[in-house]
């Protein structure tokens, strides 16, 4: 086994041990962190590795959340098919948005994705009789059951979140170390040169965006099923900013950056909100501080200093 694989497996093992042994307050926190980390890991594939700075990932997250939550609410679906449908919905949404948005690049791409996400969030509000609108809806308890495990209990909830994150993390590791992973980095570094080497940038970027959408959709669906609530606030701009924040903090273009950033940011906000209620200020200050002083994030800095081969 390569050193990188050992490191990632060790991180997964440590997370599992932490979740099973720490008091239940932290188990619940960790479950939430791992769901958000799955979201961020997928975001990092698009942003960190391929250079696609999207401001619309909330749309993929919410697509997963509603595609899992609405059937559970309206037709009493159980968790397994809801989770699958949510994942698929995230990817489908990314495909639809990407087909249009990837015709643009850079700042235009950011604005187009932002606008699509905004339109999607407003659409959720517009059909409020069916989606629950602003207030959202509670996922019925019957749907929160996966293979006999009740998703409202602390430990099974954590284990499901961990399993999803583990699959996502190892898949991301395999992806970025594959041939296609090098194509992704090539597109980020110099799209024209990549095109000259015979790579079709549009097709490759679309593929990355759809993969990223699967991650976001799975995370959104899991969030709804594990925590029992779906609402339009999850489609808001904030949920596009959060994965970007996690990735910038942990390290853009590092496989573990998403989970490191999500964990740090979660506990930072916890600490901050016990001192003051100014959590938005913390988010803002971290964002500004990162772009000013540490644009590579923690793992990016470590990679530059100590371990050049860190994926």
């Amino acid at each position, binding site marked *: 086994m390569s050193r990188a694989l050992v490191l990632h497996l060790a991180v997964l093992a440590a997370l599992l041990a932490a979740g099973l042994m720490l008091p239940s307050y932290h188990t619940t926190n960790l479950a939430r962190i791992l769901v958000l980390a799955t979201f961020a890991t997928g975001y990092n594939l698009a942003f960190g590795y391929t250079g696609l*700075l999207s*401001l619309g990932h909330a749309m993929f997250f919410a697509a997963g959340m509603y595609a899992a939550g609405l059937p559970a609410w309206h037709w009493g679906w159980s968790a397994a098919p809801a989770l699958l449908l949510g994942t698929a919905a995230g990817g489908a949404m990314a495909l639809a948005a990407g087909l*249009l*948005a990837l*015709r*643009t690049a*850079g*700042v*235009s791409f*950011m*604005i*187009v994705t*932002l*606008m*699509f996400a*905004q*339109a999607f969030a*407003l*659409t959720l*509000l*517009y059909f409020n009789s069916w989606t629950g609108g602003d207030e959202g809806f509670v996922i019925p308890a019957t749907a929160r059951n996966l293979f006999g495990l009740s998703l409202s209990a602390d430990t099974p909830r954590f284990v499901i979140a961990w399993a999803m994150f583990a699959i996502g993390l190892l898949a991301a590791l395999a992806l970025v170390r594959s041939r296609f992973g090098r194509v992704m980095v090539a597109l980020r570094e110099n799209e024209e040169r990549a095109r000259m080497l015979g790579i079709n940038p549009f097709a490759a970027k679309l593929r990355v965006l759809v993969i990223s959408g699967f991650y976001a959709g799975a995370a959104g669906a899991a969030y709804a099923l594990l925590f029992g609530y779906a609402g339009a606030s999850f489609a808001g701009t904030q949920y596009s*900013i959060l994965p*970007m924040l996690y990735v*910038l903090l942990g390290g853009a273009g590092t496989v573990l950056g998403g989970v490191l950033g999500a964990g740090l940011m979660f506990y930072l906000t916890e600490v901050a909100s016990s001192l003051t209620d*100014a*959590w*938005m*200020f913390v*988010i*803002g*200050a*971290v*964002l*500004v*501080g*990162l*772009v*000013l002083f540490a*644009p590579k994030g923690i793992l990016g800095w470590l990679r530059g200093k100590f371990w050049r081969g860190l994926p």
Partner: protein
Amino acid sequence: MAFGPFLLLALMEGMVTAAVLSLAAVGLSLVFGVMRVVNVAHGEFFMLGAVIAWFVTGMIPGPPWLAFLAALAIAPLLVGALAAAADGLILKRLNYDPEATIVATIGLMYMIQQAALTFYGPDARPVLAPFEWRVQLPWFGTSGYKFFVVGAAILLLLAVWQLMTRTKAGLVMRATQVDRDTARAFGINVDRVYMGTFALGAGLAAAAAVLVVPISQAHYLMGHDPLLLSFIVVIIGGLGSLRGTVIAALIIGLSDGVISMFFSPTLAKILATLLVAMVLVFRPQGLFGART
């Protein structure tokens, strides 16, 4: 009421939206045009203008019009100063890299929102209009202050127009917009132009907010819609084109008024956001911009 008066009412509401929007959007457009910076915190500068107007009108005794005029002078100045500081402390040090500045202004947006929430509170509060004057039409009555808003916005826009086309400062700004390096080679202090432009853009947003706050109330989250609509207007009008921005503000403001009145405000916003995304995808120079 019959259809005609309804339409008239919708168009009048739309005119007010268009007036306020064109001011805010021209500010955003100036910043983008000259500095190539997409300022996500623009909506918060708008909000700050309204909040400062509330503080100022509360502090200044005397007739409402005096307090209002004071707010109209003080709020844009304070907000402009804050923007200049943000430019010097943050944006300049990022070298105006487009993507990094977007992330930084997102951070700025959160910080300003939190500051407003902490120091001003979560309530929406009214600001007294400078005068009470009711206009009675045959079908409905309306506040005369709305006509004042439209008039004041037109005056301010003309002032910006004069500034950009007739003064040395405007010439310098336009030169920087066309080619920053050549401008620097000709001895223009580009850093100062950027700082001034950012302050001017923020000040315009604040002025727009002071004008509209007697109609709409001040609230710490009120910056969201103006930001979204300003983006829409600036993109449809063609990034960096002032004339296009004003035309687009008229179109968006009026159609927003009409669609909101006859269908639903949410639907109006959905259509506008989708329109703007499509414009960026298929006609990136804007509907009124020339292809460069």
